[in-house]
């Protein structure tokens, strides 16, 4: 990278994440204005958005080519009190905590105490949500059966498609006006609501243009006093670019990136969306600008690289909005899951890998920063060269990119009812979630702790951790004469908790649709403008709600252990086992060893265990898939954990697979840590027995020590391992290439390893920023050494 980028990168790495009260203050200022309460919710939101963008600090950093910050400075992170209020204690905790702290200065704490907290208390979405939940929901939530994403972040989870590269905000405004003109107040009972929504969208589109205008103005001012003539010229160019985009469609490579970036800032200023908003298929969107620039001489490969790298830094300057409470436990990280997609298929079904795909991979390799995250889409039609290039980056131990199967993604989306073209234009976002980019609201509603449900089953509806009755009565261990009787009880218990979760999610969804519409995001996602409906209210072409199953490996091994040891081999009774679990195996070490070393386990290509994995999947899928949502969409399943497997583990006692109380449950669809003992091909074969196509994403984590990849033989074999997994329609695979010894050393000497990025679960993080439990878990994950 050149000197400019090296400097920008260093600035970004060194900037300390901090809480900024600016957005909260401006929002409060707006809502205090007289007359606001009389406006429709959509218009309130739009005018609040406008007020923030018209008054927030404009920040152009020294040497920048792509401009715009979400907060007043790099890594100054805004808050969203209309969704969730950080209490003074929360702020103190964020400031003081050792891992992933956010600095909170005295002035911020004061503004919060004096203005933000008093005004928003009683008005926040989080309070609305918790007061609307049933006792059953609260019992399950507090016991760690499931989490709820939307209690402190808005239901974002979508990714942009290519439409913005041929449209500016003025063009969108025309579309909005056209939709307004077409409203039928005589026959459409929703016409008035649509009018309010569309007018709110129009306000938002203007607000973004004027925000960019403020950047143009600032750049002009800086240019006027700039002594360095080269920088002066750059600032003048920035000013011109910001005057053109996002009002108009971009005309060249640089404008395309700046255009996207303003739109990105609009989305993340409107809401703290869960999560992952990003440009999606960047190598596809930028290709026409790239080729045209090279052709007419206005761009070189090197200048394109520089713009991309400058763009990368912008993502890294925006840490995730800090979470609180349970949500901070499940996902405490600076990364906000923006996952740039590279490769895949074109809309017509042909191979989409192009010269820009490789350039972007080079940028990823060179930048080595936390955000944005990157992934490659590998289709059967894509070249091996593309996969090998990816693996060359992976083997440097940086944890990126992750590897996805385009053919599985397309099948998954088509099964859900999307057109094949919309599916091919889609990809994966967040951790591993498949989506029809630019056309779908696919909301993650929360994680679901499958092993915990089994624990409650073994205690006839009680949570042994608290003694509280949280589930339904399905029988005591002595009652189950056969494995199938036990399994049926578990399945019934699972259905019960799914009902509780879905009821809660439906209410949460209705609360967002009613109180907190997202008119700016609605401009960007088809067909909100055409339908005159908000993104939160079913305006998107496709609407999906996910419940993310966690602990597939653990529950499979639990069931295999019980079927094998209790019912088939009769080594001990279910009651004896239940006593051992209640004692956390203390005094039952022989039993635990039998379970750990002499029992079939998932991940070894052993049908005994793997068929139970399929059975659990069918039960989980059957309880959820296809259920209607409030927005007119469907509930779907996927299997990914972020870091919630640690939290869920803490909430779950000892399990029949030999896991001790409070240890993490298995993550994603990976086998239980260290339970796979037949090498990587056996893991792949076990995972291939899962019907990935009926999910919206699965996450498989494999850790390789560098030795296995340091020659071409290892690299090519790994490529073929991936290709084979994808022939079996596996959805995703990611690799940690690192030695356990290195990690242990890093744990002891964090200062020596500040730059050590590891793949955690669907994203990468600085190893030294991970909590000690997570660090230990990463270390203990099976190292796939060649024997």
């Amino acid at each position, binding site marked *: 990278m050149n000197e400019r980028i090296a400097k920008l990168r260093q600035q970004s790495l060194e900037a300390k994440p901090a809480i900024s009260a600016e957005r909260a203050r401006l929002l409060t200022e707006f809502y205090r204005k007289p007359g606001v309460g009389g406006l429709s919710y959509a218009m309130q939101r739009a005018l609040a958005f406008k007020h923030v963008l018209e008054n927030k600090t404009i920040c152009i950093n020294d040497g920048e080519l792509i401009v715009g910050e979400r907060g007043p400075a790099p890594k100054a992170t805004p808050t969203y009190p209309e969704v969730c209020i950080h209490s003074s204690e929360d702020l103190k905790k964020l400031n003081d905590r050792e891992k992933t702290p956010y600095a909170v200065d005295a002035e911020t704490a004061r503004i919060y105490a004096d203005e933000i907290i008093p005004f928003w208390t009683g008005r926040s979405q989080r309070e609305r949500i918790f007061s609307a939940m049933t006792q059953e929901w609260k019992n399950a939530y507090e016991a760690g059966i499931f989490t709820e994403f939307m209690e402190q972040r808005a239901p974002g989870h979508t990714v942009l498609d290519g439409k913005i590269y041929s449209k500016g905000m003025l063009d969108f405004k025309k579309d909005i006006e056209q939709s307004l003109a077409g409203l039928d107040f005589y026959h459409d009972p929703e016409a008035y609501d649509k009018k309010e929504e569309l007018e709110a969208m129009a306000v938002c589109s203007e607000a973004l243009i004027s925000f960019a205008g403020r950047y143009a103005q600032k750049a002009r001012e800086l240019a006027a006093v700039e002594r360095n003539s080269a920088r002066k010229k750059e600032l003048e160019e920035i000013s011109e670019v910001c005057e053109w985009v996002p009002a108009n469609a971009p005309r060249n490579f640089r404008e395309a990136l700046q255009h996207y970036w303003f739109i990105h800032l609009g989305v993340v200023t409107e809401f703290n969306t869960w999560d992952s908003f990003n440009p999606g298929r960047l190598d596809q969107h930028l290709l026409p600008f790239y080729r045209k620039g090279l052709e007419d001489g206005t761009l070189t490969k090197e200048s394109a690289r520089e713009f991309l790298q400058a763009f990368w830094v912008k993502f890294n300057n925006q840490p995730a909005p800090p979470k609180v409470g349970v949500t901070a436990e499940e996902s405490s990280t600076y990364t906000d899951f923006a996952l740039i997609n590279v490769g895949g298929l074109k809309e017509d079904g042909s191979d989409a890998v192009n010269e820009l795909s490789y350039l972007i991979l080079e940028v990823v390799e060179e930048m080595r920063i936390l955000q944005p995250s990157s992934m490659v889409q590998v289709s059967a039609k894509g070249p091996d060269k593309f996969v090998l290039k990816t693996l060359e980056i992976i083997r440097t131990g940086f944890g990126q990119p992750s590897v996805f199967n385009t053919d599985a993604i397309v099948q998954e989306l088509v099964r859900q009812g999307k057109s094949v073209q919309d599916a091919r234009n889609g990809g994966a976002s967040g951790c591993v979630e498949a989506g029809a980019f630019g056309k779908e609201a696919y909301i993650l509603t929360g994680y679901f702790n499958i092993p915990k449900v089994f624990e409650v089953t073994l205690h006839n509806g009680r949570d042994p951790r608290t003694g509280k009755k949280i589930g339904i009565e399905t029988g005591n261990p002595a009652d189950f004469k056969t494995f199938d009787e036990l399994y049926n009880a578990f399945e019934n218990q699972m259905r019960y908790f799914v009902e509780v979760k879905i009821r809660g999610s439906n209410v949460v969804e209705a609360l967002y649709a009613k109180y907190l519409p997202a008119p700016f995001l609605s401009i960007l996602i088809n067909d909100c403008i055409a339908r005159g409906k908000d993104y939160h209210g079913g305006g998107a072409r496709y609407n999906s709600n996910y419940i993310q199953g966690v602990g597939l490996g653990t529950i499979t091994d639990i069931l295999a252990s019980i079927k094998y040891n209790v019912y088939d081999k009769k080594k001990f009774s279910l009651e004896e086992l239940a006593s051992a679990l209640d004692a956390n195996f203390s005094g039952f070490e022989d039993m635990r*060893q039998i379970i750990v*070393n002499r029992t079939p386990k998932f991940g070894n290509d052993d049908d005994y265990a793997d068929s139970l994995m399929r059975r659990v999947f069918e039960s989980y899928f059957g309880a959820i898939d296809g259920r209607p949502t409030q927005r007119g969409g469907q509930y779907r399943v996927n299997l990914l954990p972020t870091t919630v497997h640690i939290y869920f583990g803490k909430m779950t006692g000892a399990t029949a697979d030999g896991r001790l109380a409070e240890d993490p449950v298995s993550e994603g669809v990976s086998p239980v840590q260290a339970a796979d003992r037949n090498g990587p091909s056996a893991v792949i074969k076990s995972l291939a027995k899962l019907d990935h196509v009926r999910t919206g994403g699965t996450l498989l984590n494999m850790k390789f020590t560098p030795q296995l990849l340091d020659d071409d033989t290892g690299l090519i074999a790994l490529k073929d*391992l991936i290709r084979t997994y994808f022939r079996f329609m596996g959805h995703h695979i990611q690799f940690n290439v690192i030695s356990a010894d290195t990690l242990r050393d890093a744990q002891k000497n964090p200062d020596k390893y500040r730059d050590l990025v590891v793949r955690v679960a669907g994203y990468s993080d600085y190893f030294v920023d991970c909590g000690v439990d997570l660090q230990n878990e990463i270390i203990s994950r099976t190292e796939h050494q060649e024997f």
Partner: protein
Amino acid sequence: MKGRIFDIRRYSIHDGPGIRTTVFFKGCPLHCLWCHNPEGISQAFELMYWPSRCRKSYDCVKACPLKAITKDGKGEIIIDRNLCDLCGECAAACLYEAIQVVGRDMTVDEVLLELKKDQAFFDQSGGGVTFTGGEPFNQPEFLEELIDAVNETGMTIALDTSGFAPAGLFRKIVSKVPIVLYDLKIMDETRHKEFTGVSNRIILENFRSLSGIKTEVWLRVPLIPGANDDDENIKAIIDVAREMGNVRNVGLLPYHWGGMDKAVRLGAASSFRRFEGLTDERYEHIEAAFREAGFEIRKGG
């Protein structure tokens, strides 16, 4: 027909091309002092004991019907291997997998079932199955039957051998496989005897007999400091390989101490020798010599 196997490893990537499953035959006519798989030498079952896994539960002591396992004054496990009849009661009793019987008699179908599990990986990568040991030729009938059965499935075979086998049998079997991985160690006959226990005459004859045949020959050379890494021996190996015409691939396997660790677990450390590790400089020097002679080098396989 059953064969005696001591291990089957999936995702082997250094025993021939692509992703492979490697089958280890138990029993070998050679006794190399550096042997990397000492549990492959004896055709009999053997007891392996891992002190590192042992939690001193003494379940093995209680389980042994012949009192071949005892604990000494310090509480350490002592195995009298002369008394032991390999009944396996101790291994069944040990929940920590600290004591195990090495070797398993398997039918052709049982082995085949294991091999077929990764057929998709073989197809994708141009890999297949590798038979090694021990010495596969030590169980000739089983080997031939297994080769015929595997050939039926469309999986491709690489046969890893020391070449120490009767000439007629050797040629017949070799003609049935597409790849032979051929181990050459020491060219001087006296030194060969000294370090491996057998003459290399048959080995070299069989090697030369491969010249010009359809089967692909991959040469494998373990590099053992002080035993065979001298320039003279390396040059002699290069010369004989060049004469062949159909040898292109050479795998160089630097000595490692893993074999010695296993020998200790077998209670057989005294019949092996601990050599020095091969220095990087020495390795590079030898690799360069092979490269200059026009061979393609694979380190470790």
